[in-house]
Each structure stands twice: as C-alpha cells, then as structure tokens.
C-alpha cells in the first residue's frame, strides 16, 4: 500500500485519480465524498453493455493544505479515457458547489475572512471531454461546471492541475481554460481537439499523432507554458504539484485573478492578438512560435529538463494594447 510519503515522489503521470487526490493535499487530510462505496454509477452505460465504475471515473472530496480547505475533483483516465458522463460531471459540479457553499458560510460567520484563507477548488484533469455514450448529459455537465466556475470567481480560486496520461482535451479543454490558475508538468497536455482526432479528420500530413515529439511540443506543458496557457510548469511528481499548489494558495485574490488567461476584455484582446499572430507568423511548428517569443535556439528546449527549461525559456509576451503583465 502506497503511503502519502511515497506518493510525494511518485510520478504524477503514472498516478491514478485517487492517488493524486490523496497526495495533492496534506498527509492524511483527504476525505473522499461520494466515493466508490456510495456506488454512484452511470445509469446509461449498462443499457449500452458498457462496463461501469463505482465512482464513475472521478474521485471527489476535500482535504487541507496548510489548514486551508481544498476541494478536489480528480479524473481517472483509465476509465473510458476520463470521459465526462452525467454522474461524473455532477460530481465535479457538486465539488465546486460545496467549495462555494463553504466559502459563503465562512464569510457569513466571519465577515473579515482574509481572502487567502477561504476554501479553494482543484481539478486534476485527465479527460478527452464528453462521454459520447451520454452525449447530452455529458455536454450539460460541462456547461454546469463552467457555470459553477463563474460563480466561484473572486471567491473560491479554481485551480487546474494537468499532468496525466490522457491530457485534458475536448470540452474539458474549454473548462480548464476558464479556471483561475493552471499548473502543468511537461507531460501534461492541453487542447481542444486531440491529436488522434485531428489526424482522423485532417489526415496524417496535417498532424501525425504517432509523432510523440510533435504531439508534446504542440499540446504539452512546455508549449503551453511559453504560450501562457499554463501559468506554471512543474516537475512530474505529485509533490511538485503539491508544492506549487501551496505557493498559489498563499496568494491574495487579486494576485489569483492576475493568473487568469481569459475572463476580461483585456485578456480576450490578448488571446485574439495571439490568434492574429498565427496568421501573420504562419508557424509551421511550435518551434517557430518559441523562436518568436525570444528563444533563439528553440530546438534545444525540446529535451531540456524541467528546471533547465524554466531557467532559459522565454515566454510569449502579453499582447493586449500597450500593456505587459
């Protein structure tokens, strides 16, 4: 049996959803809510003859980091690729709702609650998006998660951690973009349309999904860090993610807000300018963008260790009018 101490040095990539949930918070503090013993399984999969899981592929609960309540939803990629069905989605929504409800209660009991002492919500993404077997319910769940994230804004920081095998794709790519802070490892992958789907739809000439290096430098953590889609890049261990989380938790609400990638006119302007850049720059590869961002030898970044990468990599600058962050 893995202890919490083992988990800290374990690869985040290889960890299952429950190990991530347990290891991201302080030792022994994780309490699973709506766990496998509650048998909240998908009502749809049995009708299609598909295997079910007692927790519907998501581990939800609450733990502590430095005495601060951390509500966690952690997706299990090995169960139908972490796809979001009705129950799976409802558990994620309820996790965010619980965090917000406890914030409201704390604020009511203690109106002078400092803004970095309230609860936070963490989503450990490992998903391809909607579970097609439950398409409408799955899509609706995405919308409800987004709705909850909006309700949490300015109250409960919502933090995305991405570093698992399946990555974070499809509708959940949109959801991850709307969180306040995103933390990735170089093995984390983030995007809308996954590599296999691009190849299937557009052909191997457009995107060769068997080219691992291409896949990682297009969707992986290093690229997302340079682009600004990931706020932080950390080593591939549960402990590294936990360490970064605890640093983020010490920030004030204003500082948390400054991490957002979308959510204001200014931020959207920045994103649109990056889209415009892709038209003028006509990049053939992520490395063209890395070069534009000021990395004179982009090829060298590909194989750098995380710490070496962080010490030399230059990030794309903020592109809203006459402003830099």
């Amino acid at each position, binding site marked *: 049996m893995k202890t919490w101490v083992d988990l800290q040095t374990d690869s985040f990539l290889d960890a299952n959803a429950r190990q991530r949930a347990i290891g991201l918070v302080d030792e022994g503090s994780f309490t699973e809510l709506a766990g496998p013993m509650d048998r909240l399984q998908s009502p749809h999969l*049995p009708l299609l003859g598909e*295997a*079910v899981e*007692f927790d519907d592929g998501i581990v939800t609960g609450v733990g502590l980091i430095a005495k601060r309540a951390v509500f966690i939803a952690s997706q*299990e990629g*090995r169960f139908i690729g972490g796809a979001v069905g009705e129950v799976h989605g409802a558990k994620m929504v309820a996790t965010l709702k619980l965090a917000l409800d406890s914030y409201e209660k704390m604020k009511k009991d203690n109106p002078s609650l400092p803004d970095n002492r309230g609860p936070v919500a963490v989503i450990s993404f490992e998903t391809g998006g909607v579970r097609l077997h439950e398409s409408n319910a799955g899509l609706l769940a995405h919308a409800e998660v987004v709705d909850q994230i909006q309700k949490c804004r300015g109250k409960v920081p919502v933090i995305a951690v991405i570093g698992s095998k399946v990555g974070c794709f499809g509708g959940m790519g949109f959801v991850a973009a709307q969180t306040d802070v995103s933390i990735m490892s170089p093995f984390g992958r983030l995007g809308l349309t996954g590599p296999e789907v691009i190849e299937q739809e557009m052909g191997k000439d457009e995107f060769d999904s068997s080219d691992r290096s291409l896949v990682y430098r297009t969707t992986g953590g290093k690229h997302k860090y340079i682009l600004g889609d990931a706020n932080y890049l950390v080593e591939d261990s549960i402990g590294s993610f936990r360490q970064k989380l605890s640093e983020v938790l010490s920030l004030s609400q204003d500082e948390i807000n400054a991490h957002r990638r979308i959510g204001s006119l200014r931020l959207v302007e920045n994103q649109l300018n990056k889209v415009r850049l892709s038209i003028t720059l006509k990049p053939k590869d992520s490395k063209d963008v890395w070069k534009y961002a000021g990395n004179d030898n982009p090829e060298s970044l590909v194989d750098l260790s995380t710490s070496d990468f962080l010490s030399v990599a230059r990030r794309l600058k903020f592109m809203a009018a006459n402003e830099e962050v």
Partner: protein
Amino acid sequence: MAKQLLKLNFEFKAEQPMPIKESLHYGVVGSGDMEVIIEKKDLAGKAKFQVVTPVVGYDQVWEKVLGRFIDESNLGNISVEINDNNATPEVVSIRLRQALAELAAMKA
C-alpha cells in the same frame, strides 16, 4: 438483441471462514482491468460475489477463479462486488490478491 451488462452471482463457503475487519475498494476499471469492493457482511460464513461484466460466456471461468480465491484466502462473511471490463482470469486473480494485501496493510 441489444448488448447489455451481465450480472453474475456466485456463492462459496470456506471450510473455516475467516472474517475481515474493514471494507475495502480496490482497482480501476481500465480496459482489461477491474475493480472490487469487499464488504464485511453476516452471511453465515458464506462469501457472496456479484460480477458485473460486458463479456458473455465466461460464467464457469469466473466461478473457478473466484472459488480458488476463497479456497486460498479462506475469507467468509464477505460480500464482494466486481466491476469488470474484459479482465483476463489472471488479472482477476492478481487484483483480488492485491486487494487482500491492501486489507492486510489496513489492519497493520
């Protein structure tokens, strides 16, 4: 006929049934894998299994694999629920033994 999930039920009784102290969940329903819940239940020494699987036609194999697990572990007064997704008999045996090891670790 439309595909559907099968529910298989089995019952065994060890000669000298051993109780468990705590209930446990173990495993992930990946492709070719399974998960199990083992719960303490007063069943007059019997071990009851429910297997939920999309695979048709392996009832006898399940019976052999699960029966051997009880022969080896001597567990009794337990209710076992398995969610299976095409796990091979070897994988099933390994997962059940790992679950047992976890139970032992919990007691310690």
